[in-house]
């Protein structure tokens, strides 16, 4: 393994949680999630040489991962199906003991997956505590617009979580 590749793999290793989250939010079944994970890693690798550290590494990763998940990766269907939600649930249950926190996480995941693709991207970053400035930079809208949209998304999520 050459130097750059090793450095890149270490970077992915360190931040692979971010890619996993994007895959879970944008893909319905396990196989499709694995395909998307690989595609994101490939796209990150392709643009790694052009990354000059002008933005935070996670902002860059989010930008490429979301571009890949939303616009670059063509898949069969993006509709939320019952079995898809079950699959997400199983994915969590595999690693958990079934307490209230896990149930809340399932409800949150299911709720987020019912949002539009842009809303999903924004709430994911907000929940990961990405500042509004970076969300605006990643999505390509103004910070004010991020604020307005985030208020709407929070309201939607609240309704979905309590429904």
């Amino acid at each position, binding site marked *: 393994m050459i130097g750059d590749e090793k450095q890149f*793999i270490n970077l992915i290793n360190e931040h692979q949680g971010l890619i996993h989250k994007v895959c879970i939010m944008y893909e319905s079944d396990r196989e499709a999630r694995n395909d998307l994970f690989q*595609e994101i*890693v490939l796209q990150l690798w392709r643009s790694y040489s052009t990354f000059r550290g002008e933005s935070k590494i996670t902002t860059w990763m989010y930008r490429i991962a979301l571009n890949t998940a*939303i*616009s670059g990766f063509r898949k069969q269907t993006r509709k939320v199906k019952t079995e898809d939600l079950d699959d997400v649930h199983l994915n969590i249950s595999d690693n958990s003991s079934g307490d209230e926190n896990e149930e809340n*996480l399932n409800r*949150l995941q299911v709720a987020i997956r019912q949002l539009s693709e842009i809303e999903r991207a924004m709430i994911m970053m907000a*929940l990961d505590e990405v500042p509004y400035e970076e969300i605006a930079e990643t999505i*390509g809208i103004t910070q004010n617009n991020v604020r307005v949209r985030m208020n709407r998304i929070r309201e939607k999520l609240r309704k979905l979580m309590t429904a």
Partner: protein
Amino acid sequence: MEIEDLKDIWKKQSEAFTPKDTSELANMLKGRSTSIIAKLKRNVWFELVFTYVVGIALLVYGVTLRSGWLSSMSISLVLLFCLYSFYYVKKLKLLNRFDANENLRENLRRLIKSLKGYLRFYKRSYAILYPLYFFLGLFFKAVEYGAEGFIEHISRPQMIAVLVVFATVFFACSMWLTNWYLKKLYGNHLEKLESILGELDA
């Protein structure tokens, strides 16, 4: 539930997946991209290779024929295929212009522009090719019959009607097939991209 509560719940997600190991990640770098642009590029290369294979087969067939309309048509088709190399290069250039390093909105705009440009170019090239080849066929027939014989043959009302019906049906079917193929391959994806961009621009 407030956003801070949601953040706390969200953090639990990191524990819910099995991390990929280093060798798995290294193998991923050697994999083949399934992005829409990569797929389009592969399609263009496939069409290019297919065109050359058919071209060579036609050339072999054309030169084994003694002479006449069919032989001229086969050889002219090979020449046309050679000219089509430029068309494939242009298609690849259009696709190579795409760079996914921008923000989501700009990336969507560029992708939509690239896809639309590619599809427009694809449709136009076939819209030109079909009539061109039809008239080329008529031309070779004229060469074979001789100008006088050809004009006499073609000016019969029955022959005019047959040619008009044949040309119309062939052109309509071919264009319908091209549009259907493009819509099936990329049209739905393009509509989806436009609707996401519409949401961002709203």
